[in-house]
């Protein structure tokens, strides 16, 4: 690299003469962050999820059939996707047609239409969707055949009437994008309706509690779960959701507390708003969490009684197949479903016509494909907003159709891989079907590095 020239007066150096080698510790993005903090005195808050690359399901590959294994015919032989969650104590377990559920996302973070669309798509596919911080909307209940009702630390909108209308209850201890932190909904999204549901003044920057108000440790949680069962006459399953941090301990404690289903949400999971420092620097990758959780259940002989749901960065049928192979019974999808709805699209369908919304992204300082501005409420595609004008940009018919298509495609990808591994049931996928493409993934997933029999941390057989 040429040293930069001394410049004086109106002389402007040619770009090729300027040293633009980024600093290792202070690349332009970090410099911009420091300058932003110096200007405002506050941390960065944004939506979406972590942006740095961590080991993921992409770092695994399937050992599909050849001479030593034979495959099922891809388009002819049945590959079962039926999934049952909550068999431990509930009178009415959650029976799903596919091992893919829609994750908890709040009305408030999302528009009522977005929530309705997700419910309609889930119902069409025979699976469940989940409420969020802020309670159950009537649109969502009506649209969803199977609805999981979250019991969050904030208890916004939580009430026993909706509790008894739920098909399952999810006690949320933590979320992968912000484990240890509470929810956040900035004032521009706290509309009159959202505020009324949450018993808050409209327009405030709402910061939810990070601890439940009525219990703390696992012994209390045992009694809390018992209370929820009593209030629902032991009919519906009770899930416990944790952000992936001390996964093995949390899974065992949740089991001991009486959970029917444990949801483990990895650090690559999304959110509508949180501090960036949470998204980038808290929790463990979903890839590491799934194996740790599955092993923990096996260690205490609960893997045949308590079901494991994995979430956080699940995008494709391959991700789902790998999660199932590593021990999950089902996955939960948040951001992927929003992208299917139209999140980060440059164009929307409005009144039957296509409309380019690139300028609206530009006004947010971003563009389609890169947007993380769910926290602003200025969602160009009408999903993460409470603005009535923007909300009209999403129709529930279009949204439901797109999410249904996405879920169908995911199932086709999943069963394609399962059949190629010789499985007539997606739940028969197993760690033996996988190898890792990186040493890190091999260590986290505890499968051999591709082309070797080496699993880091394990004695060679």
């Amino acid at each position: 690299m040429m040293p930069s020239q001394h410049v004086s007066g109106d002389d402007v150096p040619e770009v090729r003469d300027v040293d633009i080698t980024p600093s290792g510790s202070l690349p332009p993005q970090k410099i911009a962050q420091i300058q932003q903090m110096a200007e405002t005195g506050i941390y960065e808050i944004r939506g979406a999820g972590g942006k740095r690359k961590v080991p993921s399901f992409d770092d695994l590959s399937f050992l599909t059939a050849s001479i030593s294994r034979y495959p099922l015919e891809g388009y002819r032989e049945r590959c079962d996707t039926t999934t049952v969650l909550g068999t431990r104590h509930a009178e009415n377990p959650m029976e799903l047609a596919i091992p893919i559920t829609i994750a908890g996302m709040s009305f408030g973070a999302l528009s009522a239409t977005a929530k309705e669309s997700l419910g309609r798509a889930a119902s069409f596919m025979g699976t469940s969707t989940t409420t969020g911080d802020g309670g159950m909307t009537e649109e969502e209940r009506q649209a969803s055949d199977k609805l999981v009702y979250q019991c969050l630390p904030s208890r916004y909108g939580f009430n026993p009437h909706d509790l008894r209308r739920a098909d399952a209850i999810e006690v949320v201890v933590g979320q992968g994008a912000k484990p240890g932190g509470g929810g956040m909904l900035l004032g521009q999204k706290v509309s009159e309706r959202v505020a009324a549901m949450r018993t808050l003044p409209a327009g405030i920057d709402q910061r939810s509690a990070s601890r439940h108000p009525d219990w703390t440790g696992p012994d209390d949680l045992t009694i809390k779960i018992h209370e929820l069962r009593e209030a629902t006459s032991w009919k519906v399953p009770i899930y416990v959701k944790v952000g992936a941090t001390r996964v093995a301990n949390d899974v065992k404690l949740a089991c001991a507390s009486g959970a029917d289903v444990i949801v483990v949400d990895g650090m690559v999971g999304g959110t509508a708003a949180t501090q960036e420092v949470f998204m980038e620097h808290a929790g463990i990758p979903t890839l590491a969490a799934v194996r740790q959780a599955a092993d923990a259940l096996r260690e205490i002989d609960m893997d045949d009684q308590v079901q494991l749901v994995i979430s956080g960065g699940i995008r494709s049928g391959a991700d789902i197949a790998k999660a199932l192979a590593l021990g999950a019974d089902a996955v939960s999808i948040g951001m992927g479903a929003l992208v299917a709805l139209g999140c980060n699209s440059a164009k929307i369908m409005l009144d039957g016509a296509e409309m380019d919304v690139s300028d609206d992204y530009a006004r947010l300082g971003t563009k389609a494909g890169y947007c993380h501005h769910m926290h602003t409420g200025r969602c160009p595609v009408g999903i993460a907003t409470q603005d009535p004008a923007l909300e009209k940009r999403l129709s529930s018919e279009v949204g439901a159709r797109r999410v249904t298509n996405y879920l169908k495609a995911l199932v086709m990808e999943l069963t394609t891989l399962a059949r190629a591994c010789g499985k007539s049931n997606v739940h028969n996928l197993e760690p033996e079907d996988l190898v890792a493409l990186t040493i890190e993934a091999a260590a986290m997933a505890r499968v051999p590095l591709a082309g070797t029999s080496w699993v880091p941390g394990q004695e060679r057989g």
Partner: protein
Amino acid sequence: MAALATSSTQELGPITGTSVILDCEELSTREINDALRGLEAGSHVTIVHPSGRHNLAVGLFEHLDIVIDGHAGYFIGGLGAGPDITVNGFVGWSVGENLMSGTVRVRGGASACAGASSHGGTVIVHGSASSRAGISLKGGTVAVGGDVGHMSGFMAQAGTMLIGGDAGNALGDSLYEAVIYVAGEIASLGSDARIEDLTQDDVDTVRRLVELTGFDHISPEDVKRVASAKQLYNFDALKGQEY
């Protein structure tokens, strides 16, 4: 079922009597709650030998008069909408949590989180309550005749607390629209909580609560009103907000 008796029938069957006794020594919690759920509105129930039993009388929607005759455990009367419950003893954590309507009256003291997240109704504790009483309150009323522990009224969003004795540290931390009345001393206020001037409406509110609870050691004109200074409602780094 020997453990359950009514004035008109000695069997569980369809219960039409107006006076029922449920015995914790012979019935599981589930059997007791199922029996309560099967009663018609207006029935009177006495639950005997509770011996610290958790989760009694939870998730009830009818108006029932329930007496728990002894000490009880966690979540008594939780998730309720309608019943009037009296506990002739002490209770554990989170009595009347997420109450929507009705009353839970505790003749003794209460452990932590009394009335947590209650949306409506009234939780009355004749003795003292431990930490975090009235936490996350969403419109209900929590009245404590004695003292309350630290962090009481934490993040209380709406509703009313009346404290007949002293309050521990960090009272009313991160309050929203709820109002706390304290007859005794306040060890310290939490973030964004402040003492405001008492209005005639406040005095009238406290007087009504004194009449309802029987806490006649409280002088409505002499309580302190604690409410939110509303400085944490929106992010503002320049205000030196405490989080």
